[in-house]
């Protein structure tokens, strides 16, 4: 059952992502992208990261997709779907992508032989040899929610406090920068 639902979501994501990349009407593309990103949130739930799944929904679906749709609406006439969407290197890029995808899948397939036994060793699917540090016993049952993620982010000793602050500054500069760039009266 679990596996079945997972593969349903996976196929849903892959199909929406694929059609988001080839559809002519770019607005449809954006909607399909939203669907794909929502599906990715579902995958996050499968990975035991509900908090991140909600963050994914909130930021990717609720903000980034809206921004993209906004951009589409601002830069397109309504309903002009009769345009060429692919550039000249479409065949070349299809070939490259095909090779890349095959390579990735082959690599995963060929390395699966050392993943699978390890999975068999531990019932829960965790590697046995990694359960040595103290944090594991503490975090064993804990999924990634705010209670674990928060300290991990801003713990001054082991965490990412500096990166966190850096990201805050980045977001602030993005806020200002985007406003300045998109302002209309630049050219006077």
């Amino acid at each position: 059952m679990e596996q079945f639902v997972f593969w349903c979501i996976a196929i849903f994501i892959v199909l929406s992502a694929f059609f988001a990349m080839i559809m002519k009407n770019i607005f449809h593309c954006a909607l399909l992208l939203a669907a794909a990103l929502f599906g990715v949130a579902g995958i996050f739930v499968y990975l035991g990261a509900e908090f991140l799944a909600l963050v994914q929904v909130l930021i990717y679906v609720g903000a980034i997709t809206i921004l993209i749709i906004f951009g589409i609406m601002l830069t397109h006439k309504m309903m002009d779907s009769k345009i060429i969407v692919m550039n000249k290197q479409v065949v070349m890029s299809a070939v490259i992508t095909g090779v890349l995808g095959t390579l990735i899948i082959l690599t995963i397939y060929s390395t699966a032989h050392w993943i699978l036994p390890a999975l068999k060793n531990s019932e829960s699917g965790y590697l046995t040899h990694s359960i040595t540090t103290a944090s594991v016993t503490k975090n064993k049952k804990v999924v990634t929610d705010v209670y674990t993620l928060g300290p991990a982010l801003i713990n001054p000793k082991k965490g990412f406090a500096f990166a966190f602050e850096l990201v805050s500054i980045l977001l602030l500069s993005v806020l200002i920068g985007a406003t300045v760039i998109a302002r209309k009266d630049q050219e006077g």
Partner: protein
Amino acid sequence: MSGSLKLLKLINVILEHVYKFLGLTNPIPEVINAFITAAISFAVISVFVMFLVWMERKVSAHMQSRIGPNRVGPFGLLQTLADAIKLTTKENMEPQKRDKIPYFIAPIIAFVATFMGVVVIPLDKGVTIQNLNIGVLYIIAITSFTVIGILTAGWSSNNKFSLIGGFRSAAQIISYEIPLVLSLVPVIMITGTLDLQKIVEYQAHAGYWFVGPQIIGFLVFLTASTAESNRAPFDIPEAESELTGGFHTEYSGIKFAMFFLGEYISIIIGSSVAVSVFLGGWIAPAFMNFLPVPGFFWFVIKVLLVIYLIMAFRWTFPRLRVDQLMDFGWKILIPIAILNIFLTGLWILWFSKGV
């Protein structure tokens, strides 16, 4: 997503009896259980929404010194039902040059996204459809989905009014989501949890409601959630005097009804969160503690009061202009909310023993 609580269990028990009665011995699959729960909550919410529509009409009638609906059923209570029947059976008009698939799914997205927020609302102690330990975030994340439905509707109708409405709605909802989240942050800082159940329980233990210490947060939240559900005075996406109907100009029949229903459900969700976070949820007011009424009763009473307040807003104020709306959101609400967070942080640091 931790376990099912009383309500689910209750339904489960009832279902088991039904199964036994029918002579089926197999245990009920979790999926069917979930479906039935969803159906029941949908029915309950729909009836509640119908009541709300009636209430809105009566409130507006009262404020405008009219009588309001009084023909269908006692006190016109069945008026909404009659309207619903009319809406579902009327001819479905669609613009010829619409974008077919998005036009079709837009009301569904808008409606479903709003409706999903109902799941985590704490009706009573331990009574939630599905309790999540990140309930507050869940509601905010899911309801932000609505804007996609609205934008899709605005785009696919192939109507300039709809498009402007969609634009306005997107700008408005994104802008007001920030003060909405920021106004909830102080409470989360004090209680140290994102679980709505636990936030209410904290208030029960502490003996006060957060509306007292967090009055600024409450007001900001109320304003922002009014804006989030596109209600007057923030109803610029569907400003009928400017954009005829905004994003739902081209919708009729059942599709329009879905937008309409979605708006009311988002009011319910907004006021439920306000009640749970700031007004003590199911806790009875201190002076009425002795009354032998279930907490659910208090919850509904409080929600209705908040909804009444939101309705009174609508029938009192003129509508803001779009740039004034943005100014209000960014230049007034967000700084106030951030200041509130800062003050709450200082308060926690100095006067309380940490979370």
